């Protein structure tokens, strides 16, 4: 069980090598094929999980609100999100006449790109990282920061005041919350002494970093919720004020792409939280990838629980919380971590 996926990967690699030999292709092509296979595997994982999460979100919300949630399609409604996907595919693709058509179209596609790209460095299990970059966590930060642009494009391209207002909020929120998010990771990186994901996981062999860095974990959770545009920080799509923010004009499959991206971001951010603070894919008895999934889903459930309980924060409070509370606190956390490291381990 432990090395199930690694074995599958090795099997693929063998077949690919054979294939390149049969086709008389240069050796390098085997590597490219493997990259393709990894990409497809990750994309499948993301899409499958996004579908599961749509269902899960609706169910969780329903149970928190003493309802049953979707229960029509399939047993206990588990096929509901599949039915939704089919419905969305069949819907008319509306592009507003006044929209900037290319930006409008491109935004829906571009939003999914950085979202999927960050999965390259996520350690799904022991030795199960697609690319174990030595700047792993920094790569995650860099790539996920570009997601802002796609949302901004969506808002601007729609040529709708609600959308524009929403995308302005996206920029204000995501650019400012990136700072405490990165700063909260710094504490962990300082203890682990590396940006590489596998090193960070290995450093938590004895004790999870949530024990050493509880404040950083708190900041990370708050900033990540804001980065995900979820739950008390869902201002960019604040339904009560600006309909659906940048997504107001989108319909059908394009809208579904934004939705998928949102849930894919939820998974990747939860995965990062699990890797940085909850020991990543390590744990007794069960195979490592199963531990990882359990931890990721625990984080996701936590995010959902928060979203369906806490009302939305106001925009000026949002900024105040960031600049007057989270950023100073995370700086203090870095300072304290540095001093503690100096005292206890002498670097």
């Amino acid at each position, binding site marked *: 069980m432990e090395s199930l996926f690694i074995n599958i990967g090795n099997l693929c690699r063998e077949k690919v090598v054979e294939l390149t030999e049969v086709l008389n292709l240069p050796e390098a092509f085997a590597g490219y094929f493997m990259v393709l296979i990894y990409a497809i595997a990750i994309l499948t994982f993301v899409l499958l999980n996004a579908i599961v999460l749509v269902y899960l979100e609706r169910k969780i919300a329903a*149970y928190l609100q*003493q309802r049953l949630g979707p229960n029509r399609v399939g047993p206990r409604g588990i096929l509901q999100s599949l039915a939704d996907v089919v419905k969305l595919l069949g819907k008319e693709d509306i592009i507003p006449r006044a929209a900037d058509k290319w930006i409008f179209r491109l935004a829906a596609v571009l939003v999914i790109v950085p979202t999927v790209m960050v999965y390259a460095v996520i350690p799904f299990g022991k030795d199960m990282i697609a690319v174990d970059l030595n700047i792993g966590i920094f790569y995650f930060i860099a790539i996920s920061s570009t997601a802002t642009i796609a949302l901004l494009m969506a808002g601007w391209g729609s040529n709708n005041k609600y959308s524009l207002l929403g995308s302005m909020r996206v920029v204000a929120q995501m650019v400012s919350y990136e700072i405490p998010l990165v700063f909260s990771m710094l504490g962990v990186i300082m203890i682990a002494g590396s940006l590489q994901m596998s090193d960070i996981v290995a450093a938590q062999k004895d004790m999870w970093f949530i024990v050493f860095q509880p404040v950083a974990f708190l900041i990370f959770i708050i900033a990540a919720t804001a980065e995900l545009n979820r739950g008390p920080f869902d201002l960019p799509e604040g339904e009560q004020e600006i309909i659906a923010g940048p997504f107001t004009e989108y319909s059908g499959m394009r809208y579904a792409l934004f939705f998928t991206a949102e849930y894919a971001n939820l998974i990747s951010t939860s995965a990062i939280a699990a890797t940085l603070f909850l020991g990543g894919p390590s744990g007794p008895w069960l195979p490592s990838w199963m531990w990882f999934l359990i931890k990721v889903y625990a984080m996701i459930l936590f995010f959902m629980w928060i979203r369906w*309980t806490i009302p939305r924060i106001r925009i000026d409070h949002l900024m105040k919380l960031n600049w007057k509370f989270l950023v100073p606190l995370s700086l203090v956390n870095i300072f304290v971590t540095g001093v503690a490291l100096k005292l206890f381990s002498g670097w």
Partner: protein
Amino acid sequence: MYGYGLLKGLRVTLGNFFGRAVTEQYPERRPFISPRFHGFFQLDLKKCNGCGVCSLSCPNGAIQVTSERDENKKRFVTGYKISLGYCLFCGLCVEACPRDALRFTQEFELSSYRREDFVCDLLEIEKREKICSREPA
């Protein structure tokens, strides 16, 4: 402490998460309809003499009653049409009926695909049901 209120809220929702769902499971489980519910109408043909008070009492004029007199100069109802599209379900007609011939049933599934279907001929319905009930099971 700041944040305590948020935690209390989280506790409430978590408690309800493990609680029972309170929503009605309508098509699977029929809801309980109280006896006085204003649903569909039922006309007692034996009692109704077609006086038309119900029609007069209706604020929207949704009821049309036609009646004739038989050889004894006794009035009897020949047509009773009620237009559900105009009906407010206020119950003034039922209240107005001097002979308690009109009453509400608990039937609440009155939706229809066509506008014409909302004009219900209570007389027809009563007759049909009578024939049905006479037939052996």
